[in-house]
């Protein structure tokens, strides 16, 4: 398997008919790298659905931080349209009205990329600071969307739990960023640290 991965660089330029089974397997494994980003975000969603029951909604939304990081550092690995299926998954996992995250997530990714183009930052702390308004705005708009989309006979949700989760996600930013970099280096860039 390792050999197959190593040989990929040498075999990619050759016609597929001339490749051996091992070489073809290596190519197939390399092609799977494009699904790593959605898988990582989906894993973040499952992590966010941990059986943790706190009086305040203080368990972070790991998936949202990962989406922010991908939109900022690797937008080509997680296209904006992937925000829709990932958002549907988030709506199902968080028991929110289906469509709330699905609508907001691709727009959030586009907004992050637009803000990123407006200026350059040299330190990751600046990216963390940039995350503060963006993540809190996401949570507040999500709250409004949930209010709009929830059936009218149910009582409305309060904004505070959404803000608490936004703050918890911001607090978890460094940890998620370290994990993101590790996954990127190990599984996508192929750099061993």
């Amino acid at each position, binding site marked *: 398997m390792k050999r197959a991965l190593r040989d990929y660089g040498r075999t990619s330029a050759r016609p597929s008919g001339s490749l051996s089974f091992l070489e073809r397997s290596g190519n197939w494994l390399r092609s799977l790298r494009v699904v790593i980003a959605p898988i990582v975000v989906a894993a973040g969603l499952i992590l966010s659905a941990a*059986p943790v029951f706190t009086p305040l909604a203080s*368990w972070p939304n790991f998936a949202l931080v990962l989406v922010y990081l991908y939109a900022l550092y690797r937008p080509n690995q997680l296209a904006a349209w992937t925000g829709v299926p990932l958002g549907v998954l988030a709506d199902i*996992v968080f028991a929110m009205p289906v469509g709330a995250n699905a609508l907001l997530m691709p727009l959030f990714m586009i907004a992050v990329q637009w803000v990123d183009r407006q200026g350059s930052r040299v330190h990751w702390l600046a990216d963390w600071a940039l995350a503060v308004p963006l993540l809190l705005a996401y949570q507040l708009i999500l709250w409004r969307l949930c209010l709009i989309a929830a*059936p009218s006979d149910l009582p409305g*949700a309060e904004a505070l739990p959404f803000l608490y*989760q936004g703050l918890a996600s911001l607090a978890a930013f460094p940890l998620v960023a370290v994990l993101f970099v590790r996954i990127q280096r190990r599984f996508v860039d192929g750099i061993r640290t």
Partner: protein
Amino acid sequence: MAWPPRKVRSGKTRRQRTSAFLGRTFLALVVGIALGLLIMSRFAPGRADSLRGVGADLVAPFWELVQVPVETISGMWNNADAYVDSARRVKQLNAREGLYRELRRDHELMRAENAELRRLLNVSNPDEEPIGTFVIVGGSGGVFSAQAIISGGARHGVEPGQPVRNDIGLIGRTLEVGQSASRVMLVTDNTSRVPVTVVRTGVPALAIGTNSATLEIDLTGPTSNDVKIGDRLTTSGTGGLFPPGLDVGMIVAIDGAVPRARPATLPSASRHVIVERPFMPPVIEPPAIPALSAPDEALPVEDPAAP
């Protein structure tokens, strides 16, 4: 004379521009689909219930697996702690034994008296039939709704609308059921309403979830609002879903007209929950009997005057 070449607005090739245009069109399409889903959630919320059941099926196995080593390690730690602390606990239990012996005797007398009175009054109590004991394997983050995921689903006999409890008190009720996992609406969810009784006064009330640490207690209606901090609340059995007598909470604050109670138990207090059948199953209306119509004219009618 040939047409002048078309102006190119950017340095990109035609193929790149087409690709970018197609990408934007696809994005607009999927965002439109998301908007459609949002509108569907508003006007046909039941459509997503089966999807949520599938979501519970997806999340449950992962956390069930993760909890195995965590539970093993915590079990070992608890065993070691209990072993070290055993001598002190034995002394403490021996000291309590004298007090409890007297209370137990009173309790047994009251139970016997209660059973006799029930027999005399011909009171019938539906049996509390458990469906199974399951593990809590997930949550919903507690932002929009307070829900838990349990490891029992349709193939274990779990159905929507069944009471869920643990050894301390009421947890909530089942909401959406997948094949091997289900979602449970906790008593703290802002759509949860549990009919309760204030134990000290016997006054009926309604425990309303608020997606926060406390429940609002609705005492409005033709009842007394005489509650004190420390009053216990138990299920009243009204509505037939929750069996009477389950601990729901305790009054912790009285702000104006709305007292607030702390839930008796949260899913984090114990990993295992019991799912039961509803205390009183919903009454199924018999099918309407069609009204008697006039006899068909084509049929021969017997004439009573005929010989």
